[in-house]
């Protein structure tokens, strides 16, 4: 997956023995297509856990969901959802800025995105600490922690990718040409996926 964020070099001109440049048989570039396919496979990983979730909730059909003494902090998670969703806008702002050559805007956007993402994770860990049930409490606890934890792991990975982009942005990389800011665009696509996935998790686990 990381490789999808990287410019892969082909053929160095002037070198007598390098490989020839590959023909570009599609308008989409390798990195973007790579991350999109990776997201397809991530969606299916979530699909496996959602399948489990709906089996435990709909097929097993327990008397109450969440089971009786347990409650989910819907408003807190709602605020957290708003935080994560707003980070999608900041990362888009970073991308649009570097497209216009606005380096300061890109740095600001990336940094804000990173902080919002980290806040989301922090609040979620805090929520775990105060929920009052653990992953060992009934299948409800197990699948709740599995699904939200799986998503949390993806936020973490997304944050790592954003850190790489932020470090590079502050060290003077990236430029307005489409090929020169793939390192911002590709983690951005992944970050949007993490956001959208959270909305689905939030709706199915907290609201439905």
């Amino acid at each position: 997956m990381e490789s999808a964020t990287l410019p892969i070099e082909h053929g160095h001109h002037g070198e007598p023995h390098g490989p020839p440049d590959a023909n570009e048989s599609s308008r989409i570039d390798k990195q973007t297509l790579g991350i999109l396919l990776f997201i397809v496979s991530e969606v299916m990983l979530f699909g496996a856990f959602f399948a489990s979730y709906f089996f435990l909730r709909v097929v097993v059909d327990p008397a109450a969901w969440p089971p009786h003494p347990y409650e989910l902090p819907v408003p807190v998670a709602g605020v957290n959802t708003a935080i994560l969703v707003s980070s999608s806008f900041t990362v888009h702002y970073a991308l649009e800025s570097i497209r216009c050559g606005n380096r300061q805007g890109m740095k600001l956007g990336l940094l804000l995105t990173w902080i919002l993402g980290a806040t989301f994770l922090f609040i979620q860990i805090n929520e775990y600490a105060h929920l009052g049930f653990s992953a060992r409490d009934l299948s409800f606890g197990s699948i709740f922690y599995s699904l939200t934890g799986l998503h949390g792991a993806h936020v973490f990975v997304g944050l790592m990718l954003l850190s790489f982009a932020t470090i590079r942005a502050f060290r003077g990389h990236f430029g307005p040409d489409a090929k020169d800011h793939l390192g911002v665009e590709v983690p951005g696509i992944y970050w949007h996926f993490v956001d959208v996935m959270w909305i689905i998790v939030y709706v199915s686990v907290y609201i439905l």
Partner: protein
Amino acid sequence: MLAAIKRPGWTRGALGALAGAAFGFGLVISLRAISGLPLYQTEQTGYPHVVVPLILAPLGFLAGFGCFDYWLRWAAGAPTIPDDHSQHGARSWKDYFRFNTDHKVIGIQYICTTFFFFFVGGLMAMLIRAELAQPGTQIVDAATYNSLFSTHAVLMIFVFVIPVFAGIANYVLPLMIGAPDMAFPRLNALSFWMLPLAGILFVGSFLAPGGAFDAGWTGYAPLSTGAPLGQSFFNLGVQFAGASSIATALNFLVTIITMRAPGMTFWRMPLLVWANLSTSLLVVAATPFIAGAQFMVLFDRLLHTNLFQFASGGDVISYQHIFWFYSHPAVYIMMLPGFGIISEVISTHARKPIFGYRLMALALIGIVVLSYSVWAHHMFVAGMFSWLRVPMMLTTLLIAVPTGIKIFSWLGTLYFGKIHTYSTSMLFALAFIVTFTIGGISGVMLGMVPIDIHVSDTYFIVAHIHFVLFGGSVFTIFAGIYHWFPKMTGRMYDEKLGRVHFWGTLIGTWGTFIPMHWIGMDGMPRRVEDYASQFGNWNLMISCFAFMLGAIQLVFLYNMIVSWRFGPKAPANPWRANSIEWQVSSPPPIFNFDEIPRVVGGPYEYGVPGARHAIMAGEGADVPAAEPSVVGSA
């Protein structure tokens, strides 16, 4: 010494593995100490101080071996150094044991590693057959037997059949589409190096207390959630093998979509490329499901969650649904690349264009789509929703249609062809058609709910699966290895030994697996080391054929090794094939091409006067330039 530690390679890899293991061990122990728990948890499903190091040691090895060096530099924001191609291509045999980004090197690495595990898994099969030669328990006890058949299946599926196809395609596919390498060469190398780690985890589970995993390759919950430590080795090995196969599939898809030579439209791609395109679609979208299923089992085992614990509201059947949602597409992951190989071999050695080329490609896509809708036919007796049975039966029967299209198209290709039966690859291809058809028909039988209920968990299932996987997939693998051996090694193999290997394998396969249909119909259960004495004679005969089948593989091994070293030099195009990989030298130049070839026609125009598939650099000024290809671009 210090230099060896700094340089990516085996020394740093070993240190990385040690560091990873030590870190994982320390992490578990110190966390348990802080929480006031006993330091070592040795219930049979627990052992966190073993399982966590098992995750981190392979990652440490990969990091030390140099799989992440370039990316870490990139992530840290260091300026990119121009690639000096020092990690590309093999100049001596030692380069095959390094982190290498050349798709040709990686292809060979894949093929050799997977064949190593093929022979390990084969030895296990020999032990299984030795035990089953007579009723009663003679050689291994019941627990070891369970471990043996589970490990045999897992090695053959996850570290032989699935990745060996990735290996063959890795070598051939970029050449076929006129690309200088894969789209992501470093990811490609990483995918390969995860594979032996998976294999080591599977085999290493024999060292675990309680023995190797013994819940079958399916690892059904709750059998797996309560099994001894070895089961965790399986859960983790599947993650590494799965990650490797997802990354490779992603790489194939991007390569095929973005790096085809000018003029190579989708309808001019060789069918092997089509086959790998469809397989990769399956892998990318289905493999995460087995990753999910194994994560859940691991959670239940290690963290004591209740996903599959009925008493706490868990659902046992959900494991089977999630597992088969991957594992049914997986049988096509193990078959479609073989279909591609057979198309190449048959067209080339029958000297005829593929009959119904477009329908062949569309049939592949049809199989991809349908294969997602048949998973529950593995669960007719599992106690799942009864309303799901008939729809699954219908889709199962439906999926035989695109497969039948392929069989008849191969027959149409052979019809009035000039069939080269002296070539071992063609022999395997012809035998494949017959054997696979039989396996396919028993598959259609199994799709019928009543028959399936009658023969569930009998040797009929074993017969079916080996007819399609051994008589199907493995025959195509042999066909592919013989077909491209001259291209990969630059040497010719010995056709006489090849024919010995072929006839031995064919007779061994039929002798071993045909009688299993009958004893299965009569009710001999699978996965048991002892059986009713009425099946004794059949089993003795099966075992004899199985030993012959195993022994004859040594002829193959001898042929490959000796021919690679001493065989006569191979010409660039010994089979007079059209596709691009045969237009470059054998073995191909280190960067495949000086200039990307231009594609001007279909790949199978055998016997068509003046037809060309591709024009290589420096030739054919008289041939009209190909129109630039944008077909299929996104």
